[in-house]
């Protein structure tokens, strides 16, 4: 029978520093791909509400395709395909970290684009009309009137997305990106203690994601209240 207490007492001193370092990798991966996904999402959301039909169509196709695929498929395509299709093109052979960031941003950009669009569309039309009638250009109206207000609306779903992203980074262990799950897999096979190691990994993910979840809930409560 497995005595987890005993296993942890023996190994925690060597596991915790290693897995703690790997947590930094997870946080770095989450942070960088979050920023990139925000940029992609905002751009696609703006294209999605464009007045040009073709542009709208392209944005919509991107959203449907990138959202409809498992993140794992996108990661595999970004990581494994370029070196095979274009061997010798060095900049296309991404490191596992870069591939993970690109893959997660492609996936997340589509999710965020829909969140941003619904935030922009939730604002009353009169806001934009008022801005235009004051002589603002459509771009200025978007930058100074619509986006600042939409930010408030989209904050809770964006926070929820960030939590999902933090958990999704675990998938990047499958392309050997340097993060917590990869470290855990190594430790599990070298120590022959998979139960203890994976439970510890799960606990570490919880420690990282739970404060975010509480923050998201607080945001949701405050923003609802002030309406």
């Amino acid at each position, binding site marked *: *029978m*497995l005595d987890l207490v005993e296993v942890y007492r023996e190994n925690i001193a060597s596991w915790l520093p290693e897995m703690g370092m790997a947590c930094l990798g997870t946080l770095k991966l989450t942070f960088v791909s979050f920023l990139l996904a925000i940029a992609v999402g905002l751009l696609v959301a703006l294209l999605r509400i464009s007045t040009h039909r073709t542009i709208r169509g392209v944005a919509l196709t991107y959203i*449907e*395709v990138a*959202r*409809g*695929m*498992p*993140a*794992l*498929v996108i990661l*595999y*395509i970004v990581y*494994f*395909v370029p070196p*095979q*299709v274009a061997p010798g093109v060095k900049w296309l052979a991404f490191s596992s970290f870069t591939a993970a960031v690109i893959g997660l941003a492609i996936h997340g950009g589509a999710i965020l684009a829909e969140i941003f669009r619904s935030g922009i569309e939730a604002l009353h039309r009169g806001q934009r009309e008022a801005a235009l009638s004051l002589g603002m250009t459509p771009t200025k109206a978007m930058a100074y009137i619509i986006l600042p207000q939409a930010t408030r609306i989209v904050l809770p779903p964006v926070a929820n997305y960030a939590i999902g992203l933090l*958990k*999704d*980074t*675990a*998938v990047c*262990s*499958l392309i050997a990106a340097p993060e917590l*799950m990869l470290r*855990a*897999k190594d430790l*599990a096979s070298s120590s022959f*203690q*998979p*139960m*203890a190691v*994976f*439970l510890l*990994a*799960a*606990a570490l*993910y*919880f420690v990282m*994601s*739970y404060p975010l*979840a509480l923050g998201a809930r607080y945001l949701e409560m405050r923003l609802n209240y002030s309406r």
Partner: protein
Amino acid sequence: MGFWANMIKEFPYFMSVLLHGAVTTITVAVGALAFALVVGLVVALLKMSPFRVVRFVTSAYIELLRGTPALAQLFVIYFGLPDVGIDVAPVTAAIVGLGINGSAYLAEVYRAGIESIHKGQVEAALSLGMTPARAMQYIILPQAVRVMLPPITNFSIVLLKDTALVSVVAAPEIMFYARNLVTETFLSMQVYLLAALIYLSMTIPMARVVAMLERKRKAWR
């Protein structure tokens, strides 16, 4: 040979293998959905229990499962449980893992749905002499289902995509076979694109259903 020449030559072989995997993908998705629907309802009802301890334990269940990656949960079930003497078959581990993960999510969906029904409805049912259980069964749940249908369908899409993870516990689904085919033929682009197409042919129609359900729900109100 060019991309299309290879694609055309290998298409029947690739498709037959990948679609074979799709059967497992669908089995796992449907099994995990059924698991999550049933367990999630139990969890949601327990969370509304009058007993504090029960509510606390249920909250802990939901928070712990929602705060950790599904991949970590799968690893604990598939690689961890044999440590304590329980061997789990890959597909079973996949269904149970994704099912438990989903039950925590659906419990919140159920709770939001139930809470969206006006309190007067329960009060009216109780004053007509219904027991609380009957009021739940005949008055609350049938109305709440309408509210819950779009998020539940949405969850099914997420679940279907999450089944790609279970290739790591050796469940022979689409990505499992895709990886094997790439090792065998080195045609990564063709294989992964076909795999992506199979996923899209399932998720995009489901997304359309969600959009339709959401439009309908607005019309109901």
